[in-house]
């Protein structure tokens, strides 16, 4: 291996270590797999009888005899293990021409859920409740469902928005913009948005707006768990019991049956020979308590026995697309950790196949534990609390690399929280950060946490209004690092985490969102600098630079409540950016001129002007030294010098390995 190859190997390895794995990754993967929907299933007003020993026939109308036709009965079933959180709202479903009821509830672990009951013109009502994805809560809102169905000229998509969202709009496939209706049920923790559209021009994304913040866009593929609109439907959708529809699609990876309910993809069944019937005459997948799939032509009935709980038998029915298959769905009230047996029978009632289903896999074993377990104080009353941390030596990584694991807390769907993620504590530029929620006791709490290098003295969470919540550190004997944490009420809008590092004047700031990067050039409000560059203060206290209408790289945003001057100190006297032949930035007050000198020679000077916004800094722009070449002024060994109006040196700065 020559020098270049050695260098390449080393460089790739260094860069690779900057990409970290989240401790929630396993849960996120499970959410994407067919057996883990974001909603907890309850098929159309499941009667108590279905939970008993034997219930015949879900399809072919058999279930109709057992299904409540009264939406109020559906409501009672759904709310048996829940408490309401706010009033119900009723909206018109344009696809069905019947009402759609929506309301918030608290699930078994106190987690917020949105529930719905949809009434139909020619079938029984059905409903469901599902938890809120924490990741979306902090950003604005998300999709919940859709009433779109084959043959309907109009449809309605709906979802949830944070209370501070002031407008929601939809963008359709053709680019048309449709404002959504925002509903604020009395006493509810969130808003509900609805948007009605023509079926031939479906919604492609929704946009959430908050005052003074960048818009947040969510693609509709979030609802379909993939780009269903990129797939080609090859047959008319068939509606099965409980609002489930299934249709064949041509996709990039072959033909599939896609199973939907209330607009959400709940399962996909590949029709490719290499995947179909590989383990017997039945191919199925599904959620913890709803299974859907296809069977060979000779399978007439399927029976699912859930260990110690219930037994369900369903008839299969022929597919209407001449695929030579039989379709089925099976609903149980099985939990994720319950084993089951699935048995197939022919038309004569003879058993022809059976399989044992194992409980859902627990969190993977990421490696051997290193050091003791840390019990996080103040989390004893958390759901599945207290929160515990420990380190493991990572299985899949070179020796010496660790993962930080946690247990305790509650996931958005009410399940026990836990997982392992990358544990980075040697890279001064990385910020290890994850979080754990609990919804009880009310109003619930969130703990942000991560690994902490030894020279960190404090960690704070900074709110949008500039207030700070102080955190702390915990450790265990033998553990390779400390763990930092900050606890705050659930739903708190944390704008940044700030870290005080020993021996440093400036705090390290890790913003949780980067709205300023999306800022648009303010018309006529920029402050002119040299070389046609303008600077403008956007989003209250963030400065960006433009050349004409083109935005220049870099967004300089102090923590909320701070000024640009808080980003500078003698140890770091300027912030700068570069685009082609221009450089620009801001520096300490009292600096009249800034020069940059490159390692191999070449220098350039920029004059400064006071910022016009009272931010306590001097703005500058200038030409990049001609000798800078392609690397520009982000090159090791360069030196910046600040001069006062009398030409005296007031500071010098050589970028180096500092943790900023």
């Amino acid at each position: 291996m020559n020098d270049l190859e050695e260098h390449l190997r080393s460089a790739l390895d260094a860069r690779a270590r900057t990409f970290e794995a989240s401790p929630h990754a396993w849960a996120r993967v499970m959410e994407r797999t067919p057996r883990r929907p974001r909603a907890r299933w309850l098929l159309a007003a499941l009667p108590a009888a279905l939970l008993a020993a034997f219930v015949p026939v879900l399809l072919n109308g058999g279930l109709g005899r057992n299904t409540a036709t009264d939406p109020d009965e559906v409501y009672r079933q759904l709310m048996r293990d829940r408490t309401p959180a706010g009033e119900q709202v009723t909206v018109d479903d344009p696809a069905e021409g019947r009402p759609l009821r929506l309301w918030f509830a608290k699930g078994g672990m106190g987690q917020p859920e949105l529930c719905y009951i949809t009434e139909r013109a020619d079938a029984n009502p059905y409903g469901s409740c599902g938890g809120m994805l924490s990741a979306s809560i902090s950003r604005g809102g998300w999709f919940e469902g859709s009433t779109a169905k084959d043959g309907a000229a109009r449809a309605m998509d709906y979802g949830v928005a944070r209370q501070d969202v002031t407008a929601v709009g939809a963008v359709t496939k053709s680019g048309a913009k449709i404002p959504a209706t925002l509903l604020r049920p009395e006493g509810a923790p969130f808003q509900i948005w609805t948007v009605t559209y023509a079926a031939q021009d479906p919604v492609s994304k929704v946009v959430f707006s908050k005052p003074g913040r960048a818009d947040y866009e969510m693609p509709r593929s979030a609802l379909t768990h993939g780009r269903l609109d990129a797939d080609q439907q090859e047959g008319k959708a068939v509606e099965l019991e409980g609002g489930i529809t299934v249709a064949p699609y041509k996709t990039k990876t072959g033909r599939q049956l896609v199973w939907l309910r209330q607009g959400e993809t709940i399962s996909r069944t590949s029709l490719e020979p290499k995947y179909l019937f590989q383990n017997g005459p039945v191919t199925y997948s599904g959620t913890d308590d709803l299974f859907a799939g296809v069977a060979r032509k000779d399978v007439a009935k399927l029976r699912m026995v859930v260990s110690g709980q219930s037994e369900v038998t369903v008839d299969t029915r022929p597919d209407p697309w001449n695929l030579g298959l039989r379709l089925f769905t099976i609903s149980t009230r099985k939990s994720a950790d319950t084993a089951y047996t699935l048995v197939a029978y022919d038309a004569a009632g003879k058993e022809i196949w059976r399989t044992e289903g194992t409980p859902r896999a627990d969190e993977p074993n990421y490696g051997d534990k290193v050091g003791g377990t840390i019990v996080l104080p103040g989390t004893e009353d958390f759901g599945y609390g207290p929160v515990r941390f420990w380190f493991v030596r990572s299985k899949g990584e070179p020796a010496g690399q660790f993962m930080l694991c946690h247990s305790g807390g509650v996931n958005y769907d009410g399940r026990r929280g836990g997982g392992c993620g990358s544990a980075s504590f040697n890279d001064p530029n990385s910020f290890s950060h994850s979080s754990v929620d609990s919804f009880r006791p009310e109003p619930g709490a969130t703990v942000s946490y991560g690994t902490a290098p030894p020279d960190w003295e404090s960690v704070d969470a900074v709110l949008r209004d500039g207030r700070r919540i102080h955190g702390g550190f915990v450790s265990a004997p033998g553990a390779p690092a400390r763990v930092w944490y900050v606890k705050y009420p659930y739903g708190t809008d944390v704008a940044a985490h700030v870290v005080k590092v020993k021996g440093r004047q400036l705090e390290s700031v890790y913003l949780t969102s980067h709205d300023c990067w999306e800022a648009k050039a303010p018309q006529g409000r920029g402050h002119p600098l040299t070389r046609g560059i303008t600077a403008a203060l956007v989003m209250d206290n963030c400065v960006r630079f433009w050349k004409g209408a083109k935005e220049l790289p870099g967004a300089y945003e102090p923590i909320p409540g701070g000024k640009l001057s808080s980003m500078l100190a003698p140890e770091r006297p300027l912030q700068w950016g570069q685009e082609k032949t221009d450089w620009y930035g801001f520096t300490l007050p009292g600096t009249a001129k800034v020069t940059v000198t490159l390692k191999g020679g070449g220098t350039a000077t920029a004059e400064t002007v006071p910022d016009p916004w009272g931010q306590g800094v001097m703005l500058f722009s200038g030409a990049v030294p001609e000798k800078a070449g392609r690397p520009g002024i982000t090159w090791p060994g360069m030196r910046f010098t600040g001069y006062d109006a009398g030409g005296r040196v007031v500071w010098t700065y050589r970028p180096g390995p500092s943790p900023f």
Partner: protein
Amino acid sequence: MAQPSFADLFAAQYQSLVRLAGLLGADDPEDIAQEAFARLHTRRLRDDGAALSYLRATVCNLTRNRLRHLRLVRLRRPDPPEPARSSEHAVILSEEHRELLAAVDRLPRRQREALVLRYWLDLSEREIAEAMGVSPGSVKTHASRGLAALGRALKEEDA
């Protein structure tokens, strides 16, 4: 010996696949790696070797599609703002490797894939070919052209 479970495979390979997606230029490497595992879960491949090959190939494919999508978006819109780090970070993060990594970023997609799979994952030509969906001979070509391009780029920087 029993085949490793899906969970075992996840524990052993997830972080590595996040990093592979990142090195190939994905803007959200975790999204790519999670999607690859979700697809594997659906496929239910039984053989561990086949599963790992499938995961690598899926990460390469998804990243390729994602980059293509981003390029199309950029064609329709003005250049996006630089997302990540200040110039300061560019200096600090990769002081030693910055020049070389910048040249890697400029490589054609296939050459970049071949070099990352060979020099970071230490895969054989056959394994690289499986991940990239090309022939082993083609891997050799992409890798040698990529290395040559890097060599030229470094000389230009020094000039």
